[in-house]
């Protein structure tokens, strides 16, 4: 997390230099210590998260690809189907055990155009799909499989 804070500092500064890096390092370390004491962050927790970095990056790249592809699909539907859509409101259970994994799944579903997570109560998700074609295989999505894999690595 300290490295992320340092990266954010440099990015927001807009240029690289000794002064910026030195001040950024001091501020990042101070903030990291504060986060450890007040928000429950720890070095061991960060090292665990670092081990899942590869899987996390793969998941985010897959999410990006799906978001862009879904955008194109919905654009096509706008021009071809218009008002002749067959929207669905689907309730389904997810196998994910972890709350953060469930939240990530809900976010991924909402970020991909064509599906919106309406509610999530425990393992029960309610998703609105713009068309029947977009609702297929929603309960066994690749997102869920990737998140389950990440969950197992914890």
């Amino acid at each position, binding site marked *: 997390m300290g490295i992320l804070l340092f990266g954010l500092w440099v*990015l927001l500064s807009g240029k690289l230099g000794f002064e910026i890096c030195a001040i950024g390092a001091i501020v990042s370390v101070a903030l990291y210590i504060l986060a450890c004491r007040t928000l429950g962050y720890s070095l061991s927790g960060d090292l665990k998260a670092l081990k899942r970095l590869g899987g996390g990056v793969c998941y985010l790249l897959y999410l990006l690809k799906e978001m*862009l592809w879904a955008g*194109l699909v*919905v654009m096509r539907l706008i021009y071809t189907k218009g008002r002749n859509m067959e929207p*669905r409101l689907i309730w389904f259970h997810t196998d994910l055990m972890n709350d953060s994994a469930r939240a990530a799944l*809900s976010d991924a579903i909402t*970020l991909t*155009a064509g599906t919106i997570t309406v*509610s999530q109560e425990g393992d029960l998700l309610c998703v609105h799909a713009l068309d029947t074609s977009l609702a297929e295989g929603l309960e066994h999505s690749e997102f869920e499989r990737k998140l389950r894999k990440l969950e197992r690595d914890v």
Partner: protein
Amino acid sequence: MLNNILTAAGLIFLVFGVFVFFSAVLGLYRFDYVLNRMHAAAVGDALGIFCILVGVILFHAPTLSSMKALLILVFLWITSPVASHLIAQVETATNPNLKSECKVEKR
């Protein structure tokens, strides 16, 4: 030479981004129910914003400050699902004729 290529690529992304936003606005008129219209708006949120900001990054590349556009993208993509989720939840909770607008199914 590199600057020209980056500018041309940026321009292509910007023009396509504008087309995506045009399609999203058109979708708002073509669709007839609030939840359906949200999907049209989501196209702008995801694909439109991505194309416009990648275009902006390419226009100003290769500078560190152009990467700030990536932060805009990240924060937009973190916050927009929360807003969409709340709007959709309010609609489904308050609309008594929901079943006439969309088929409800349990899997």
